[in-house]
């Protein structure tokens, strides 16, 4: 396959994606994606899980384009929230919040939003170009590998997703194990034996992946937020001025290099499962901070535009990078990618190395729609930021009640039986306790979805070697993959340690009066944040 062929295939993809109907689907996807990215408590993974019922009525290309739009849109929307909302967000957006929130408070919110949006566009577009040219080669290589190498790749995915996402290695692995366990319930695909069904006919067909994902993401989140809902008014920092004046020459001059550096960091980090976008944004922030000179360096911690431009670009580039292992190997490394894999499975499209050959029209239409979606997102996010700010003000009781209603809708439409709603509640309560005790959710979802594929490849490998486990590491390619795994691990551990030191430093800075959060509810908490910061951040086990 030459790159000229790929170029023509991409052009054909554009011909498909530019059809008015698909443009509408892409627009719908990015609109929903931006909205859920802006809204706290709901992210792209949850949204794709909740919208899985559309796979019943839409044809595959349309549904995949919608989901891809949601995926990219979610990345854009998140930055708006972390820049304008005066409360701490999730750790993945904490880096953007760090400088962006300070900029907004200093009246430079518009510039922060603009550099985030344009940076996301630049990074998203470059990373999509890289995806279009790298992915076919990876796929061409991947079709040659056998089950043994496949097992090795999935071990890498399991361990990196399990051990590196989240703050605690053991909790991540426990979450992964729970996912693998739930995936075992039902008939064994190879021997048709019942496993862990306990004689129940409801369990014989297995527990539906979408049901578990919706329960963990939506019900677990609603219960958890409900248990600790932040009361009082929602404080949003106002943005002033027209959007055309947002990015001044000076801002642009300081932003373009961080955008490119963020892209260069984000795409490879997204491609290898080294902890997801979280690590990419942190790396980008740390390098921008290091590279800044003179006056700009002093601005770090007080609202430096480089600290928004770099991490936001890295975030979006990583999102495109994640699609490389998903589309070429069928290995998802984030929860959203895992849900997209489920969408492919719903259409009986085999995801794996053969995807580029067997469903070439679909894949190239998907990639083309990413270019289109990126452009739409830039247009949607710059002039229309006012609309997203309005969405941010939706009363929280309604937001989480709405999430619950969507969750029961998704659960019921799996098999059209109310028993699934009860299973939804049970798994949702599990998700509540996982959040409460610091267990990451993503490894469980990835384990749930990759578990059955992993087992069948493992058993195929061992059938070929007649049960000799040494064969699993004897192939040179597999052995190389395991060595790379060790290197990734060593590097990630090093990075994690630096990230923690860095977060501890940030937490210490956050005690300064101008960032005291939650003061609206309790005026007497002037000293409380100090103890809270040390309680929640230092007590993470290492």
């Amino acid at each position, binding site marked *: 396959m030459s790159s000229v062929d790929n170029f023509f295939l991409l052009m054909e993809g554009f011909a498909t994606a530019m059809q008015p109907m698909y443009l509408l689907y892409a627009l719908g996807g990015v609109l929903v994606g931006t909205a859920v990215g802006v809204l*706290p408590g709901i992210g792209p993974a949850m949204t794709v899980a909740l919208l899985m*019922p*559309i796979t*019943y009525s839409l044809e595959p290309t349309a549904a995949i384009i919608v989901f891809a739009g949601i995926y990219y849109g979610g990345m854009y929307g998140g930055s708006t929230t972390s820049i304008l909302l005066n*409360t701490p*967000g999730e*750790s993945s957006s904490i880096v953007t919040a760090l400088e962006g929130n300070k900029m907004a408070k200093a009246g430079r919110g518009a510039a922060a939003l603009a550099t985030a949006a344009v940076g996301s566009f630049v990074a998203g577009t470059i990373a999509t170009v890289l995806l279009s040219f790298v992915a076919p080669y990876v796929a061409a290589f991947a079709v040659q590998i056998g089950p043994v190498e496949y097992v090795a790749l999935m071990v890498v995915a399991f361990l990196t997703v399990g051990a590196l996402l989240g703050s*605690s290695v*053991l909790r991540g692995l*426990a979450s992964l*194990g*729970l996912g693998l*366990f739930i995936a*075992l319930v039902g008939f064994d695909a*190879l*021997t048709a*034996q019942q*496993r*862990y069904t*306990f004689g129940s006919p409801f369990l014989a067909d297995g527990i539906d992946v979408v049901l578990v994902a919706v329960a963990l993401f939506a*019900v677990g989140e*609603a*219960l958890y937020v*409900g248990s*600790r*809902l*932040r*009361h009082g008014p929602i404080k949003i920092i106002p943005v002033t001025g027209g959007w055309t004046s947002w990015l001044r020459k000076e801002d642009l001059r300081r932003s373009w290099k961080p955008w490119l550096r963020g892209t260069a960091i984000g795409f490879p980090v997204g491609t290898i499962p080294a902890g997801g976008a979280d690590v990419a944004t942190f790396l980008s922030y740390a390098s921008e901070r290091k590279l800044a000179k003179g006056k700009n360096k002093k601005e770090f911690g007080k609202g430096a535009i480089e600290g928004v431009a770099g991490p936001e670009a890295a975030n979006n580039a990583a999102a495109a990078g994640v699609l490389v292992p998903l589309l070429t190997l069928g290995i998802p490394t984030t929860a959203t990618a895992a849900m997209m894999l489920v969408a492919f499975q719903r259409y009986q499209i085999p995801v794996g190395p053969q995807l580029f050959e067997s469903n070439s029209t679909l894949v190239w239409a998907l990639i083309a729609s990413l270019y289109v979606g990126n452009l739409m997102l830039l247009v949607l996010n710059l002039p229309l930021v006012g609309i997203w700010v309005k969405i941010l003000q939706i009363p*929280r*009781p*309604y*937001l*989480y*009640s709405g999430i619950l*209603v*969507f969750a*029961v*809708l998704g659960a019921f*439409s799996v098999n*059209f039986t*109310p028993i699934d*709603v009860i299973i939804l*509640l049970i798994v*949702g309560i599990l998700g509540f*306790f996982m*959040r*409460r*005790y*610091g267990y990451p959710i993503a490894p469980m979802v990835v384990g749930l979805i990759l*578990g059955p594929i992993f087992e069948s490849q493992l058993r195929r490998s061992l*059938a070929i070697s007649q049960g000799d486990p040494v064969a699993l590491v004897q192939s040179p390619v597999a052995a190389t993959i395991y060595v790379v795994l060790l290197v990734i691990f060593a590097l990630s551990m090093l990075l994690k340690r630096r990230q923690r030191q860095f977060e501890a430093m940030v937490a210490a800075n956050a005690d300064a009066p101008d960032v005291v959060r*939650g003061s609206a*509810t309790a005026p007497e908490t002037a000293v*409380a944040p100090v103890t809270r910061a040390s*309680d*929640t*951040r230092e*007590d*993470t*086990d290492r």
Partner: protein
Amino acid sequence: MSTSVQNAPGSGTAAAPGAPVGELVFALIIVSIGVVGFVAGAGIQTPPSASDIGPRAFPFAVSALLVVVGAGLVLQVLRGHRGAADEGEDVDLEAKTDWLTVGKLSGFVLLHAFLIVPLGWPVAAALLFFGAAWSLGARPWWRNLMTAIILALVLQFVFGGLLGVSLPPGFLEGFGVFGG
């Protein structure tokens, strides 16, 4: 009710407020799922013709992972290493866990499950929204009710009518636009 307020001696958590009883129980549950995995896994039939490692090996491996990791977590919690509760824009980490709200929300989801068939999806969904919004502190009740009814009808129209998802329309049976 609240497990985080009770005190268990010897847990050695100097920095964290309250004893980690709940967290300990959760780690023990992970261990016990692994144990159940072994016990129930022994009952999985292996056909004699199986040419590979059979349907039991992987369940055993997963069970072993759960037991080992769970035991490690029990030790960690006992030694005072606590998990960091999930952060979020709407989460007030200083607030005590409000078990009553969790109970109410779970109760309304359960009620919804039992009402879908007798009353139809729109009524059951509207009741869920109304109940959940009230549990989370939204007032006044009539605005909650209006929002609940509109949302339920819109969802029934979009998913039941337009997208063809077969949600039982209940009293809307006969109106083609709401599906059925």
